[in-house]
């Protein structure tokens, strides 16, 4: 069942003139789904979320909750629970008063309200903190109060605007597992905004990658990682080499390209790739899908090491192949290699993928 639908939603601000902050976005999110809007800052992800919350109205397009059109419904009539980036806890209220605020507006009885506040605080492991003042809490605790405040009203949709960005790295990982657990337990649909792709990968059922106000790709984390729709997605999600290679032959699902050493290889391509022989194709290959070998091995691409960086788990190299810098992340590195050495690269052809520009 579809819970939230955005139909050709665009948003232009008077300040920014003609450029759209959000440009013709189509998204439908299933009930109970954990859906992430991912992209660099200024890509329009927060604007999109705020349109779902009702803080902005779209310049054009529709937003539906189920079958109801909520495009111009004010935020207080939308029944969403939002967790703000800076938590937006009311500083003049105690923890319990913060959590109870939405219940009070919904005229929930006092006993029932107290029970639900306790329950929500228990859910975020803050039982017994009700009487604390907000400024007596750590950043992580404040974050969880904000989550409890959004959950306690049992919203139809949970909206999270970079809720982890103010936490330190370790707490961030703990909390994201926690948010995911609570969301699964409560069965809420969640829309999550982040610029952190690892966070998006770890938490989401599906991800919409956004850039310049447009959705670049929507898909499950694995799909986005292994089958990026275009060069931007390939480079933004993880790291990727996007090589421009000549096309020698095509089928519906593959494109055969020539490698710098003259060899040819068939690479999987999205249906409707539209490439023809003689054109250049953009081929994405991730650094961890390139192995190191000797230059003499048949099928190896020869290159020269220009950068070498040992990070512990892997060694990151930049190898110059016919003038093109290729990133490699190798776990097994031949002993004694150094910058300037000639080396052979073995591309994992299964993992290569044609992307749109």
């Amino acid at each position, binding site marked *: 069942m579809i819970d939230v639908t955005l139909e050709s939603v665009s948003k232009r601000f008077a300040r920014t003139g003609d450029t759209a902050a959000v440009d013709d976005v189509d998204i439908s999110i299933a009930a109970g789904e954990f859906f992430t809007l991912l992209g660099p800052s200024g890509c329009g992800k927060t604007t999109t979320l705020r349109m779902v*919350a009702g803080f902005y109205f779209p310049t054009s397009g529709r937003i539906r909750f189920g079958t109801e059109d909520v495009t111009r419904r*004010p935020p*207080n*009539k939308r029944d969403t629970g939002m967790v*703000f980036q800076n938590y937006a806890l*009311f*500083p003049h209220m105690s923890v319990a008063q913060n959590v109870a605020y939405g219940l009070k507006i919904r005229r929930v009885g006092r006993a029932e309200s107290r029970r639900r506040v306790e329950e929500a605080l228990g859910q975020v492991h803050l039982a017994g903190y009700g009487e604390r003042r907000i400024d007596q809490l750590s950043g992580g605790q404040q974050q969880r109060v904000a989550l409890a405040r959004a959950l306690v009203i049992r919203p139809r949709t949970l909206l999270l605007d970079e809720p982890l960005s103010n936490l330190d790295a370790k707490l961030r990982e703990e909390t994201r597992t926690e948010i995911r657990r609570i969301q699964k337990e409560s069965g809420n649909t969640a829309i999550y905004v982040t610029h952190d792709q690892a966070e998006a990968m770890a938490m989401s059922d599906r991800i919409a990658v956004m850039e310049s106000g447009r959705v670049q790709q929507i898909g499950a984390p694995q799909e986005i990682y292994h089958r990026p729709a275009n060069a931007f997605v390939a480079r933004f999600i993880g790291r990727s080499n996007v090589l421009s290679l000549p096309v020698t032959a095509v089928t519906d699902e593959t494109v055969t390209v020539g490698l710098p050493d003259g060899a040819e290889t068939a690479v999987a391509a999205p249906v409707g790739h539209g490439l023809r022989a003689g054109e250049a194709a953009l081929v994405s290959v991730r650094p961890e899908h390139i192995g190191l070998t000797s230059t003499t091995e048949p099928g190896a691409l020869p290159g020269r090491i220009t950068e070498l960086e040992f990070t512990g788990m892997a060694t990151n190299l930049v190898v110059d192949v016919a003038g093109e810098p290729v990133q490699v992340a190798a776990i097994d590195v031949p002993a004694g290699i150094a910058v300037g050495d000639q080396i052979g690269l073995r591309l994992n052809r299964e993992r290569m993928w044609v992307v749109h520009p």
Partner: protein
Amino acid sequence: MGGAPVTAAPSAATVPPITEDPAPAGRGRRPRLGGRFAGGASSRWFPYALVFPLALILFGYVVQPMFATFAESVGVDGVANYTEFLRGEGVARSSLLTSLGISAASVLLCGIVGVAMAFLLKRFQFPGRRLIEAIILVPAALPPLIGAISFQLLYSETGILPRGLQQLFGTESPVLPFTGIAGVLVVHTFTMYPFFYLAASAALAGMDPSVEEAAYNLGAGRVRVWRTVLLPMLTPALVSASLLVFMTSLASYTAPLLFGVDRTMTMQIYINRTNGDLPMASTYASVLAVVSILFLLAMRWYEGRRSYRSQSKGIAAHRREITNPFGKWAALAASILATVVLLAPVGTIALVAFSADGSWTTEVIPSAYTGQNFVTIFSDPRAFQPILNSLQMSLIATVGCVVVGVLIAYAVRRLDFRGRALLDVAVMLAWALPGTVVAINLISAFSTGNVFSFGQVLIGTFWIMPLAYFVRFLPLVFRSSSATLAQIDPSLEEAARNLGASWWRAFGTVTLRLMVPGVAAGALLAFVNGVGEFVASVLIYTSQTAPISVEINNRMYSFEVGTAAAYGMLQVVLIFVVMVISGRLQSGRSASREAAKWTA
């Protein structure tokens, strides 16, 4: 000015709320319309609905009266009044030049005193520093009239200091008396140097000491560091302080009044008004208004430019300990002297308040003391009436300032609408206009009934007084509300909305609730300023509505100096009570300081 929002509102109302028809089948037209209105702040018309009455108030009581004054000034003689300013010999021209000259000299003097004080207090450690820091704003906190009177009692020809020195040295005449323009400059220096002091010490506090250290580290000597690092970094603060002092001096009325400098713009307004030449008074008021507006615009333009605040926080500037023994003694002596000088005005008022009327003639200090002055004020209903008047009129004005000021601050800070900058400028216009000009504007506008006075003539009635206070002190409440609002994260209100609160409920339970300390600080400031108001009151009061300051002035004229000072003492006590309350209003503190910076 301020007219644009007025005309913008109807056009906003004609914008169709929705172009598409988003209603699902089965939903009638009426519920949607209801939903539209419940939408409140979300709809496009909302900002205009809120702003329209505010813009109307500003237009009606600030902008329109200004135009009325201009109309008055050209009504009878055309531009003839203005050509007075071009004539070499005329009073008009020399008044304008004197006013400008006094203002320029005030800037210079206040700059020297204020910056020196800031450097001494923020960069050096010496005995008495904390005490001086605590009382440094005391002279400036006095109400304008009683402040000027205290300086007159201290430093004029008949003042305590020149007479004391005369007796000490046995000379013929008082030693070092300040008269005329010199007297005006003393008052200005003592009451306006805080603009420089506050600006310079804020700049010094905001300055990262490592920037200075970096200059030393790169080999610069102390003088060079001063010249190339410290002064340039202070420049923005000094420029805005200069503009403020210049404007305030230009508007100054009590100092020239008490020291008898008739040829200033404000005095000419007063003199022409009391002589019944309203067109000429209006001409002076218009010229002064134009100059003040130019300064306001210059300040806004300058404020928009970058200031050199360092990003690193929490590093306190280190104070240099004075180590050499001579310096130590000199510093101690200077501290004691500074303390005496800073407290002398209040001390004088307190002393004279207990002197018997008519007992002080040629002595250094009054010879006979009594508590009768206070008894008279509180027991004689006619003597108590001015106090009732002041409290009542200030209270009414303050309530108006809070309602309008808070809403304008909210509109300017939080809402997106056409003409927002104009609304902001219109409020600040009320602040930039000198009190005498505000009074003349109201006289011009409301000596006949018009739409904004509901057809009533306001001049000669009670209501013109609170209206004048409202216009003068609205900017104080606006400023402090706006400063508080800037510290409240907009997402708090959004969070409340998201949790289901209507705009009114979110505004009331969250934003307004959090604004309370700042608004209260601003309101107290407005109230205190109202109780001390003299400049506008003296032009528009009637015998029934005379406020405290006017009563003080009248008593001074009838040589009842003791009673006058007793009234003054009551004002001073009220101010200190309010300052203590303001200090208690935790977060209101910074807001009130922000507003205090703008107190004219």
